[in-house]
């Protein structure tokens, strides 16, 4: 079969990926620079029997996708800066109630209304710690249009597999940039669906896990299991509990289900790192500039390489630790005034020099600027 080759922007690739992954429900609220994701979802979803709804705000959009997911539909919302802030409480709800869903955040300049049409990478820490309390989260960040397609599918897959909200962190450049992409055949796309309970109705305990598997099978509303879901600390039956023992057990399992499966969840790209003395850590659109800078540096005889986290949460701590033993300096380049750099420093700081290079004025970081930084080192 012929593969489909199309010219499209990141936001469109995101919707194409989502529908390929099985998204059948989208709720959102217009906000630049993510709006195309809502517009294209509104256009495409009814054509595949799916549903789109424009809610009254981002809080409601987040709530609606959790509700839809509880009936069994793969669900997504998309937003940007201010809307991402509004969604945080219900992202926490999805974390504790273990409701699979995908949240796309197209990062723009902040804080507050900030720079609505300019790129930024200022929501890195918010993606990890935006909602209150200790909670599990997965965040992925693509640096091309094709990768946006792939990572949207992967976001759904991880979300279904681990019953966790997955954040797809784009930036304005990736979202609006147009690239030629080859859309893979349906048969070549791996799709993961949530595990369903095999218990007889009446014996189903919605938060009971079996053996090593830390993710409970999930029934849908209307299937006959009649289970209870709450944002309160709950035991295996799903009903609330004030017991410190129950609370500890639940929170520990929520964290562990990501922690012990890090190898499956974490992905990254290494570029020219084999003999590198200077490593750049960069993600999203910034990684593209970094790659060019590295090529220029290599031409000048400087041994530079790139470590590009694709999964930015959880952080690839083992790989960064290994990297820090091989290189003299790590430069973390990000479109903010220093967020991921502190995580990298925590892991690598004991072995090598870690420095940050960033900016938050709505302008891209150019290859020349990164090259200057490399030369400085």
């Amino acid at each position, binding site marked *: 079969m012929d593969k489909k080759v199309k010219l499209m922007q990141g936001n469109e690739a995101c919707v194409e990926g989502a529908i390929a992954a099985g998204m*059948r*429900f989208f*709720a959102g609220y217009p906000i630049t620079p993510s709006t195309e994701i809502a517009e294209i979802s509104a256009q495409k979803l*009814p*054509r595949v*029997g799916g*549903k789109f*709804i424009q*809610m*009254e*705000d981002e*809080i*409601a*959009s987040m*709530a*609606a*996708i*959790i*509700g*839809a*997911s*509880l*009936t*069994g*539909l793969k*669900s997504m919302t998309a937003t940007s800066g201010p809307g991402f802030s509004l969604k945080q*409480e*219900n992202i926490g*709800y999805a974390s504790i109630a273990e409701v699979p869903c995908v949240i796309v955040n197209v990062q723009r300049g902040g804080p507050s209304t900030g720079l609505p049409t300019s790129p930024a990478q200022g929501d890195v820490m918010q993606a990890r710690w935006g909602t209150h309390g200790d909670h599990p989260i997965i965040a992925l960040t693509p640096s091309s249009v094709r990768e946006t397609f792939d990572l949207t599918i992967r976001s759904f897959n991880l979300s279904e597999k681990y019953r966790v909200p997955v954040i797809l962190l784009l930036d304005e450049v990736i979202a609006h940039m147009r690239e030629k992409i080859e859309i893979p055949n349906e048969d070549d796309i791996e799709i993961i669906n949530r595990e369903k309970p095999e218990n007889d109705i009446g014996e189903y305990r919605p938060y009971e896990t079996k053996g090593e598997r830390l993710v409970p099978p999930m029934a849908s*509303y*209307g*299937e*006959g*299991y*009649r*289970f*209870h*879901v*709450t*944002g*309160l600390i709950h035991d295996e039956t799903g*009903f*609330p509990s004030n017991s410190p023992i129950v609370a500890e057990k639940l929170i520990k399992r929520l964290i562990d289900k990501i922690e012990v499966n890090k190898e499956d969840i974490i992905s990254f790209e290494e570029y020219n790192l084999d003999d590198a003395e200077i490593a750049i850590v960069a993600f999203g659109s910034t990684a593209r500039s970094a790659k060019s800078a590295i090529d220029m540096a290599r031409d000048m005889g400087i041994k530079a390489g790139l470590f590009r986290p694709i999964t930015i949460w959880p952080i690839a701590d083992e790989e960064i630790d290994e990297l820090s033993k091989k290189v003299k300096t790590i430069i973390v380049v990000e479109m903010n005034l220093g967020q991921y750099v502190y995580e990298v420093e925590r892991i690598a700081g004991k072995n090598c020099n870690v420095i940050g290079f960033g900016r938050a004025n709505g302008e891209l970081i150019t290859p020349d600027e990164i090259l200057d930084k490399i030369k400085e080192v």
Partner: protein
Amino acid sequence: MVSGLIEKYFRYNRLPHIWCPGCGHGIILRSIVKAIDELGYNKDEICVVSGIGCSSRAPGYLDFNTLHTTHGRALAFATGIKMANPNLKVIVITGDGDCAAIGGNHLIHAARRNIDITTIVFNNNIYGMTGGQYSPTTPKGEKGTTAPYGNIDKNFDLCELAKAAGATYVGRATAYHAKLITELVKSGIQNKGFSFIETVSVCPTYYGRKNKKGDAVNMMKFLKDNAINIKAAKSSDAERLNGKFLIGEFYKSIEPEYTDEYNKIINIFQKER
């Protein structure tokens, strides 16, 4: 031993419930379940959604598909559920603060869409769970822990609000008028569209104590003596209505329902295929 109704529809091993002695919420909840029983629905097709607050603990006691969400957001979660699976009969149980303060925006928009959800507000005129702060339905001049000198906010008439926003079935009953609750809930669930039923509850612990309304019995007597059915009110003179409040079925109309309208869009493309 428990009654047949409780045994059939409640997760009765979770009872007694957390509500205070004399709280009207238990009466209202039983009346809702009675309506579901009389309508003869299968328990699997009922989905009850709530927010946060005293009222919102209700779904945990019911043997249906149940969802206890975040403060104010029950209707937004319920909208997702109903859109995703229109076969479910979706009922939202909410409180006056949950529904009309933090969730006020979701209320008016769910009503505007005329999505087939039956919303039942347990209105106790106070924030009970947090200890007695004034709410959007605390009458002007009355007290709460955050209105120690009397509330200067004007209170909402929730039924007028829902009707103005587009609800296609609107009614009010009280914890004293339990049979009326059952009647209204039955009609509300049967209405294909957004139904809004305000149930006036009693909170002797906070609202009653703060405002010297007496105990639960006194508060129930107040409801008995001061609520007038809209049908009776029509033939009453102004003097008899003075200081009273209305209960009964206030409004119903037939309008296009949201999930039906969306399915029409899906059907366009199904024909194409």
